[in-house]
């Protein structure tokens, strides 16, 4: 069974989003997503400064078997990426909500966020898929 932390928000594409106190957002992929992908051997992250619309390809995570896109959950620009993943992509498998974070985003505008799922709604989505 995969882990779904209560304090995070989620997309139906299995990204997680964390809003930090400074108003920036951290994005990663969920425990369920990393389990489905298997061991990651390469993570491609965006250039800082790139601007994104919700649903734009944000990153690529590749396992021994396949490549998968990670989508931007909100509009914003890339403030920074997780530097450790260049040499240690396995952090995404071992700690998807911590050391395996992917990208920090500056949201495009203050105000309403797009429709993200809370933990209960995301867990229900995973249950429904089984």
């Amino acid at each position: 069974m995969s882990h779904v932390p209560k304090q995070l928000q989620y997309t139906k594409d299995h990204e997680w989003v964390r809003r930090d106190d400074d108003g920036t957002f951290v994005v990663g992929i969920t425990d369920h997503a990393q389990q489905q992908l298997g061991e990651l051997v390469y993570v491609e992250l965006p250039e800082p400064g790139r601007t994104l619309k919700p649903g734009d390809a944000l990153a690529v995570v590749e396992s021994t078997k396949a490549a998968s896109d990670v989508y931007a959950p909100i509009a914003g620009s890339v403030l920074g990426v997780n530097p450790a993943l260049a040499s240690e992509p396995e952090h995404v498998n071992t700690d998807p909500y911590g050391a395996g974070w992917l990208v920090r985003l500056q949201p495009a505008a203050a105000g309403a966020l797009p429709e993200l799922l809370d933990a209960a709604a995301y867990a229900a989505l995973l249950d429904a898929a089984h």
Partner: protein
Amino acid sequence: MGHQTPLYVEHVAAGARIVEFGGWDMPLHYGSALAEHQAVRQSCGIFDVSHMTVVDVMGPDATAFLGRLLANDIGKLAQPGQGLYSCMLNDAGGVVDDLIAYSTADDRYRLVVNAATRTQDLAWLARVADRDDVVLRHRDDLLMLAVQGPAARRLAAPLLPDGVGAAVLALQPFESVYQEDLFVARTGYTGEDGIEVVLPIPAGIDLWKALTVAGAVRCGLGARDTLRLEAALNLYGQDMDAGTSPLTSALAWTVAFDPAERQFRGRAALEAQKAAGITEKLTGLILEDRGIMRHGQRVLTPAGEGVITSGGFSPTMDRSIALARVPVAAEGLCQVEIRSALRAARIVRPPFVRHGRVLVE
């Protein structure tokens, strides 16, 4: 749900992630494909390969039949116990499948062909056999295990019946021993030493369990693919198929044009290809940039364009490697189009890894 091998319950109990492959529900990995890969390179891994198709060929015309069926020369098998890698070709010179043919007795052979191609392979065998006096027996009553790695034979030998264990330690590559219902060949698909064992189902389940107790690591299709890619062993359906020639698939060494009078299926087409000139080759690529090369990506070389037939991550080299079909003259630096970006790569002579050692710069 696909076919299941007799070991399916064992795989699930061992925590396997199951995937569909060629109509079969097979283990992808048992937790870590990377750890399974390393076990085979460093000690011993075991694979359930019961989805492979075993066909016994027997009868007075068996040798003549295989002489027409196979692009390699069955006459090279001087005595029972020897084995031969070969393609069988269609009349256009395309690869119907690749296989290993083992001589098991006078006028008797065992063929091991691929899982995903079973139906068309069996149909092709029957068609080429035509009016030959041969019996083709599809052995779906047997189980097949691959025990692979530098420690494989040492680990397996004591678990085999008296006589067979000692014989296994003495086998040369591609040789086999066949006693009662137990068949053991020194072959594999990993680039390491090892054996493939074909035996009745109950004995096979017992051997699988005994090997795991002895310390062999269960391995799934994920490790099987990274191991064979490092060893530059072709995968049927990806690196070659019914539309590609062995002469452009790094398999020219498996085509026996001598003796000149042996009329094997596809011979005329291959001779015409040779006369017209071979324009492509299957070779190796190493990615110099970051990223992972994958099947189907374009390769741009100074000599023209090519395509990746198998690409992926090499756990041993910690970078991406690939097999690619490119113009014959292509060498040195090239580019690969990965997700619409051009990445620097280099053409190298495969294999990449054999017997635990990296063989390319």
